[in-house]
């Protein structure tokens, strides 16, 4: 039990400290050993990340399989089967040595079959959804930009002035709009942006501090 608790609770925190403190020190001290340590850890990050992608794929298929088994609504089966079919097809073509380009040492991901699968399904759907985003932005803007209170009114007026400042007809009849729009962007927006950014950086640094001091236990199992 004690060893289990050590592995699940204390070891992750020790690993974080062992990894993070030398990296932090690397910023203030120039040393070959520290530099090598930093480079090696950077490579490991890539390896772990690549393996994790693979695990994600297994998790996806596992999830689809469980959804097939558990779902009482059998009308959903064709959709799930189609998802699995497309996923496996992409995987088989992309990983296939039959389509490999040996000059660049790449498997089938450059092959026209793979590109067709990718563009035909993923690319088309991606563009459609991207277009949908703008329609939704319009509907949300209509709901949000109204004279409801002082803040909402300022937001509405700022937005209108900033948008219309580039329109030639407004520039012609309301020449004050251009400098006012620029002022909103350069002074109002930039001031708020910098303040928000500093606070966000502090928040992020605080989480880092808590982790290095071993107090941040959100991602560590505590009820083993």
């Amino acid at each position, binding site marked *: 039990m004690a060893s289990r608790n050590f592995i699940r609770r204390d070891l992750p925190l020790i690993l974080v400290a062992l990894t993070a403190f030398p990296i932090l020190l690397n910023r203030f001290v120039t040393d070959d050993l520290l530099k090598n340590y930093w480079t090696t850890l950077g490579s490991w990050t890539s390896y772990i990340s690549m393996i994790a992608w*693979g695990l994600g794929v297994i*998790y996806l298929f596992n999830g689809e399989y469980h959804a097939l088994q558990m779902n009482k609504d059998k009308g959903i089966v064709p959709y799930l089967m189609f998802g699995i079919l497309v996923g496996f097809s992409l995987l088989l073509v992309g990983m296939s040595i039959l389509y490999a380009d040996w000059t660049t040492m790449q498997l089938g991901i450059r092959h026209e079959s793979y590109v067709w699968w990718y563009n035909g399904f993923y690319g088309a759907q*991606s563009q459609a959804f991207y277009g949908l985003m703008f329609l939704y932005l319009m509907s949300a803007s209509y709901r949000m930009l109204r004279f409801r209170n002082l803040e909402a009114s300022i937001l509405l007026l700022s937005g209108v002035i900033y948008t219309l400042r580039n329109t030639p007809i407004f520039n012609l009849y309301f020449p004050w709009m251009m400098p006012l729009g620029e002022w909103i962007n350069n002074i109002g927006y930039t001031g708020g942006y910098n303040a928000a950014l500093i606070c966000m950086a502090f928040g992020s640094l605080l989480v880092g501090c808590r982790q290095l001091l071993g107090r941040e236990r959100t991602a560590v199992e505590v009820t083993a």
Partner: protein
Amino acid sequence: MVAIETKYWMEFVWYVIMFGTVYYYLKKVERNEKLPELRTIPATLAIEEGVGRALEMGKPVHYSLGSDGAPIMSSSVGTTIAALAVLKYTTRLSAKYGTRMIMHLPSQGEAIPMIEGVIREGYIEAGKPDAFQRGDMHYYGYLTAAFSPGVYTSFVREGVGLFMHAGSVITYEFPILEAAKINNAIVIGGTPRWTATYIFAMACDHMFIGEELLAAGAALSENKYLTSSIVSEEIWKYIAVLLLVGGLVLQFMGIPFKSLAGL
């Protein structure tokens, strides 16, 4: 050959102040001394309200960290940790009230075991470990174009009472926030990513503005050690304002504060 980088002295001093203040307040908690009052983040109160509403409507709670919202190998890792703390709190509440919770997993495969662990912990803490359903964790693969339609479909198919969308979110995920709104859900969310903050302002009923999400992670943990650290952050903000004003005054007086500070 070991050499000290003197040009970063200001950064070094800043790190010492940071660790010093956090350590000071941790010690204060250990000695049971009183901490300054902290304001409540409005969006955190709305989570319980949302879970209750989902229960009344008989619809599930949906939680998402974003399509690529759980980086654990970049400067956004702080956001991931904070969002996981909010996730644990939401899971605990859902388990307590008996509301079904559906988790929409981000593309980062390496974060999935951690997310699953946090959800399991939430159910265990609520005393209902058997209520955890692995089938309620949906994975959509890489990029938003796969994620958003998946979440959208889930809203339509299962219904949505509360949608929590907090993490390293990108603007491209706006349709799912609006979709939750169209499906009559309470929408709560936020991100410390400034460029994506506006989508939450447009579509959320309650939002974590900027670093509020990072503070909420600690505030919701009900752990005194974590909440004490928020006090340190407030002190850093005062120091930052002093440095900004002091630096401006010195620059106006002709003293080169910028180069002295190694900036």
